[in-house]
């Protein structure tokens, strides 16, 4: 049951080439950025090629690893001496183990599909080459993040994805909303980064190193206080990256970027980094029940928070963003449940990567057909016009709902089951919350699906006449080109079969595969029978979907959002997260800067200027004594002498 620590072995042939995974997209990004306009004609294909090469190499590493014995699967690759500073030295090295390989596969495969999709999606953008350069940079940074063998090197990748997301979210920076969103994501992520830095500081203070090997093997020797501090700080970092309460507010706004970016950030790369860093630190987490409980609570709160927000939004991308937040809440909850949950969190992360990417690309396809409109209230009945998008989106929809045998069923149910398993009172709180989340997920995703693809066509001529809404321009939705639909189809296939293959065909193959890193903890002992949980989950999912059908599929959806009750209004406003942030952090912060500025102005400057003015005034007075008359000087001297004499006389006596 205890953690195995980290025993590395010599890297096999392909694994020792894993640095190429980072180098190839990085070099491609450099070429695209340095060549500038000259690369406009073929730059996007270079980007696709670079990303595709990483996918091929990643697959090779996976296959090679499958051929190794379990004990040899944690491989270290030494690169170079990175920070030699006196007694302290840190080498840059890579760690290729099952957990890393899972991420490599997810990142490279999904990214490659998104790259291909982007070639068509960004076809009319004059800066397509720059877009691909940023995408490649993002992939390189994310691969560095997951391949690093120390928290310090992970941090480089961590900041790299932050930079790339800033560049990509603000890609259309001529729009004010876009660069504001990019800045918001950047700033909120920096708050989380402070946590990661503090965690590293804690590790360094306690163990004198930030390398995984030292930290994870030394975890058991740490005192409760130290390890709890480190894990909570890691959690803070994870909250920032993975958009968990209370650092979640940037995620919805980040939808301002091009849709492939949203797919990339949400499915495969950046937001998963928080989960990754926590699972990677499993040996630390196991030492502190306090921090684990906090992680579970953060996950549970975010899960419900995201689901509520997603249930009320009309912007198709923002619903998907809220959904990501909610699903990451599931993963966070799984991590917080302890050893039984670690592997399930990664499993759900993996399948989620596929179906969320598929749905984002589907949403992009819909937007492409609807003149970049994102308001679901102006969609409806797109099934007929966009058959492939409808089918692939349906695969993602059923997968995220957790309908058997789609991928989400296997991964999400495992988390819900784990939430019901523990020997304290926790399962009676966390379990129902996870169950509620499943119902809400079913509701908002079905709402999105029905509003977009079913019901009445709210973009048609008749509808425009009936609504008297000039905003409803006349549109002819059409299916996207093959470059866009093929990646969607591949992702849809993943959404359908991935869970089935990994969980059933290979009989818990996924969880077993992660054993060398996370240990095998078997299936959890639930407080109520597993079959009853599965029935309950299916029941609430069905209930959520049916409610959504009656409200948004069968009934006519008004083209403008109707007046709503307090809860719906609050959810439309993201549960006032921006207002809270503004009231709690921004206003006092601004007050502080205003006060600091005023202090600087009146106190510091005032003192300096006052001193100067005082000296000048004194000079004016003294100047008056300089008359040039001999008599007055003589009188002054006399007075001075008399005073001196008087002083001497009285002090002597």
């Amino acid at each position, binding site marked *: 049951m205890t953690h195995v620590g980290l025993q590395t072995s010599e890297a096999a042939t392909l694994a020792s080439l894993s640095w190429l995974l980072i180098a190839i997209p990085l070099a491609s990004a450099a070429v695209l950025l340095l060549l500038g306009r000259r690369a406009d004609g073929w730059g996007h294909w270079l980007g696709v090629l670079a990303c595709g090469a990483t996918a091929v190499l990643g697959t090779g590493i996976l296959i090679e690893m499958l051929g190794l014995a379990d004990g040899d699967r944690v491989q270290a690759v030494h690169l170079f001496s990175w920070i030699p500073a006196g007694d302290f030295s840190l080498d840059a090295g890579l760690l290729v183990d099952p957990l890393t390989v899972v991420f490599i596969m997810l990142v490279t495969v999904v990214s490659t599909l998104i790259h291909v999709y982007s070639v068509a999606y960004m076809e009319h953008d004059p800066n397509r080459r720059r877009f691909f350069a940023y995408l490649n940079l993002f992939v390189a940074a994310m691969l560095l993040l997951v391949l690093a063998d120390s928290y310090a090197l992970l941090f480089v990748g961590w900041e790299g994805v932050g930079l790339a997301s800033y560049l990509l979210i603000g890609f259309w920076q001529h729009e004010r909303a876009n660069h504001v969103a990019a800045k918001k994501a950047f700033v909120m992520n920096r708050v989380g980064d402070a946590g990661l830095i503090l965690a590293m500081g804690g590790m360094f203070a306690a163990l004198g190193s930030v390398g995984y090997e030292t930290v994870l093997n030394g975890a058991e020797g740490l005192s409760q206080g130290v390890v709890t501090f480190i894990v909570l700080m890691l959690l803070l970092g994870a909250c920032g990256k993975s958009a968990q309460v209370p650092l979640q507010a940037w995620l919805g706004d980040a939808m301002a970027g091009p849709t492939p970016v949203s797919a990339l950030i949400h499915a495969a790369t950046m937001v998963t980094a928080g989960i990754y860093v926590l699972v990677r630190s499993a040996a630390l987490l196991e030492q502190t029940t306090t921090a684990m409980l906090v992680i579970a609570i953060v996950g549970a709160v975010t899960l419900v928070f995201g689901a509520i927000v997603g249930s009320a939004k009309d912007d198709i991308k923002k619903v998907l963003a809220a959904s990501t937040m909610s699903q990451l809440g599931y993963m966070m909850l799984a991590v917080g449940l302890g050893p039984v949950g670690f592997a399930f969190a990664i499993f759900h992360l993996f399948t989620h990567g596929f179906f969320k990417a598929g749905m984002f690309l589907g949403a992009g396809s819909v937007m492409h057909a609807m003149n970049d409109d994102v308001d679901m209230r102006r969609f409806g009945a797109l099934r007929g016009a966009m058959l492939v998008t409808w089918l692939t989106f349906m695969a993602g929809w059923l997968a995220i709902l957790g309908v058997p045998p789609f991928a989400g069923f296997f991964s999400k149910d495992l988390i819900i089951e784990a939430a019901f398993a523990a020997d304290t009172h926790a399962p009676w709180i966390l379990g129902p919350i996870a169950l509620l989340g499943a119902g809400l997920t079913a509701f908002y995703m079905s709402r999105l699906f029905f509003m977009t693809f079913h019901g009445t066509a709210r973009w048609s001529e008749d509808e425009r006449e009936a609504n008297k809404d000039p905003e409803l321009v006349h549109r002819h939705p059409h299916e996207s080109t093959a470059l866009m639909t093929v990646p969607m189809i591949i992702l849809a296939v993943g959404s359908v079969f991935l869970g089935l293959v990994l969980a059933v065909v290979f009989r818990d193959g996924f969880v077993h595969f992660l054993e060398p890193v996370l240990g095998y903890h078997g299936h959890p002992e639930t407080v109520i029978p597993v079959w009853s949980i599965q029935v309950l989950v299916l029941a609430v999912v069905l209930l959520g979907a049916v409610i959504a059908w009656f409200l948004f599929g069968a009934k006519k959806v008004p083209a403008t959002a109707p007046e709503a009750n307090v809860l719906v209004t609050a959810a439309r406003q993201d549960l006032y997260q921006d207002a809270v942030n503004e009231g709690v952090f921004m206003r006092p912060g601004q007050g502080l800067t205003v006060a600091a500025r005023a202090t600087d102005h009146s106190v510091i400057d005032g003192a300096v200027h006052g001193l100067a003015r005082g000296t000048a005034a004194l000079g004016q007075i003294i100047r008056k004594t*300089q*008359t*040039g*008359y*001999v*008599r007055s000087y*003589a*009188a002054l001297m*006399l007075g001075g002498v008399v005073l001196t004499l008087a002083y001497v006389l009285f002090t002597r006596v």
Partner: protein
Amino acid sequence: MSLVHYLVLSGIIFSIGATTVLIRRNAIIALLGVELMLNASNLTLVTFARLHGDLTGQVIAFFVMIVAAAEVVVGLAIIVSIYRTRRSASVDDASLLKS
């Protein structure tokens, strides 16, 4: 006759000299006032020399006389040159050094 009387006389002479320097405009007269003050000081020095029974004060009095003689020579030369350029020996007229 007590030695204190000498000191009192010295004080009176010093005061007359000081008053002269302070209130008279004519440079020559002011210089005379300075001489009176110096003489009063000398008288004090000699008196104290007598009081202490050594020669230090008397010696210093000689120094004062020599310095006074030198000073008067320089002072008179300056006054004469001022008079030649400005046709006036009033010290108030010569306040040009004022900033």
